[in-house]
């Protein structure tokens, strides 16, 4: 009996360590390939990587930047992870972020809410979450009741959201006082407090951490999370268990959208303080990367988010210092995920094929 426990623990631990080390390996290989690109710029990869990977941790300002960037990534990542547990691929983080920001701005710049301070922030976040939830819900509804793959609907909704923002920001929502295509700025008493001076990091990070805890509790400890996970693994078992699969597809997408919307809202209150084009560019995709690399695990998402935001921050430093374009990060992110995916299947081949009944 004790031997059994020991070997069981070892097996699980081994599996987790294996996955973890594969991710590290993937990162290393990606960095190696990245160095070829760096060389193409005529820059020494060692120099560039020092600026990108080490420098960000050397000043409080850049550490603050990492935190500021990680905040929305964690939240979007949680949303993507929720949906992924329920077999929904949310590619629409981008659009949902924008919609969240839009909802927030609409509420907070309205006359009634303008000067409400903390209450205004809360209302704004609720509005942002709601808008994001609706945007995600559209794709969820399509999947549940029109049987349209969420892959395509979320992509379409992304473009639609971006164009809506573009129109509003150049037109109806444009700040009457200025010349830039952006909305009115939110009142200064509705800015999220900074963590420490000299950086953009703000207390939104605590909200992000709450999101992670919320994710874990709901997913693992509630009936809803349980049902969602069943739907994600086996629709047949879900039918057996009396779970209404289409409605869970819908709910999964609504939740994903809600979190992304919340992230957009926090960006408004913590970093941007207004609505403007390109304000959340790339966060949607990076959020997906974060959920993937985090293996849908709350700690994993946290670590992956910090990793990604350090990469992005570091890339900015690197570009300023040696001129290597920040788009290197996209290359690295894509490579890392692709390699990690490759490593998943190595484990599969090791498993002995289970003989199906009646098939021998």
């Amino acid at each position: 009996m004790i031997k059994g426990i020991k070997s069981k623990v070892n097996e699980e631990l081994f599996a987790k360590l294996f996955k973890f080390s594969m991710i590290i390996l993937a990162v290393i290989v990606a960095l190696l390939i990245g160095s070829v690109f760096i060389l193409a710029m005529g820059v020494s990869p060692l120099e560039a990587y020092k600026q990108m990977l080490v420098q960000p941790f050397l000043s409080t300002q850049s550490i603050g930047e990492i935190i500021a960037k990680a905040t929305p990534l964690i939240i979007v990542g949680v949303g993507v992870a929720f949906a992924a547990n329920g077999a929904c691929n949310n590619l629409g983080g981008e659009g949902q972020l924008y919609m969240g920001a839009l909802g927030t701005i609409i509420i907070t710049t309205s006359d009634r809410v303008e000067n409400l301070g903390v209450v205004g922030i809360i209302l704004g976040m609720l509005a942002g979450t709601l808008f994001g939830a609706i945007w995600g819900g559209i794709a969820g509804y399509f999947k549940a009741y029109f049987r349209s793959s969420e892959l395509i609907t979320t992509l379409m909704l992304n473009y639609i959201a971006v164009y809506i923002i573009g129109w509003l920001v150049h037109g109806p929502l444009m700040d009457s006082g200025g010349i830039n295509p952006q909305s009115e700025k939110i009142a200064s008493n509705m800015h999220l407090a900074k963590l420490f001076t000299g950086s953009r990091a703000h207390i939104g990070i605590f909200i992000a951490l709450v999101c992670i805890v919320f994710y874990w509790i709901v997913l693992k400890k509630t009936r809803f999370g349980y049902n969602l996970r069943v739907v994600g693994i086996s629709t047949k078992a879900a039918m057996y268990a009396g779970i209404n699969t289409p409605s869970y597809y819908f709910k999964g997408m609504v939740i994903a959208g809600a979190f992304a919307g919340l992230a957009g809202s926090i960006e408004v209150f913590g970093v941007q303080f207004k609505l403007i084009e390109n304000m959340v560019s790339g966060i949607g995709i990076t959020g997906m990367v974060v959920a993937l690399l985090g293996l849908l695990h709350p700690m994993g998402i946290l670590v992956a988010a910090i990793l990604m935001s350090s990469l992005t921050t570091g890339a900015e430093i690197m570009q300023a210092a040696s001129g290597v374009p920040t788009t290197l990060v996209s290359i690295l992110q894509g490579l890392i995920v692709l390699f990690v995916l490759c490593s998943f299947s190595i484990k599969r081949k090791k498993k002995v094929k289970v003989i199906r009944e009646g098939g021998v």
Partner: protein
Amino acid sequence: MLNMTFITALLTASIRMTVPILYPAIGEAVAERSGVMNIGLEGQMLIGAFVTLITYNSTGNIAIGIILGGLAGAISSCIVAFVGVSRNQPQAVVGFMFNLFAAGVTSYLYRVLYGASGVSPTVEMINPIKIPLLSSVPIIGPILFEQDILTYLAFILAFAVGFVMYKTKFGLQIRSLGENPRAAQSCGINVIRIRWGTIAFSGFMAGLGGAFLTVGIVGRFMENISAGRGFLALAVCILCHWNPVYSIIGAFGFGFVNAFQLRLQALGVGIPYQLLLMLPYVAALLGLALLGRNMKGPKTVGAVYEKEGR
């Protein structure tokens, strides 16, 4: 506004705007019929557009540029084939991450090669080829028969690929992979190999579409030159029932909206241009809502296929 010159110009432009959506749509129709999903079309278009540019810049020859652009799309799509088919990872994620990677690579290399100089090199655009006799037909003539070679090729390929898919044994084999890959394997068909082939083909087509963007529409390369066309091609594929010939209709629909909104902008009609740009995507959504519900497409698109036995 609604005079003949306007309409003729509009339709001619529409045909041209159909092309960069039609190419990847045809490719994806073949891929999805064989049971795989290539979400990486967008990235392959970018790569094709980019490679065409740099090839032209070094050789001065558009034809080679176009061919290499297509090949680059095909070769890069092998990444999707490897991770998504051979390694059995979720194809949607693989394709999407590939797009991220491709956007990064093209943008980065563009900056490396041309960023410093601040000059964005232009390419010689391909010339329209007038087809004798047919182009003299009133109204339709100049619209359909004064297009360039890539445009003609796109439409020819739509029919040719359709023919192969539905009238030859090869097409039957490909389609069987989308319906019942086990049955196909038992007939001795190498499922994995053909799926690699169809993905490479879709990558090639996407690459050609990207090449066309560079030499046929824009005249140079820029970030996000594909502007979501690779994704629109996915919608066209489904809405047009995975049939390359019907895809002409779908692609034309989007091409028309594209050309239309450009003209409306130029005319200074009061509608903000972003709302017009939005139209293709809204149309795709509506299409999926109305038509997507009972679509009976290839059964196994994206499903994991484990080769039986050893």
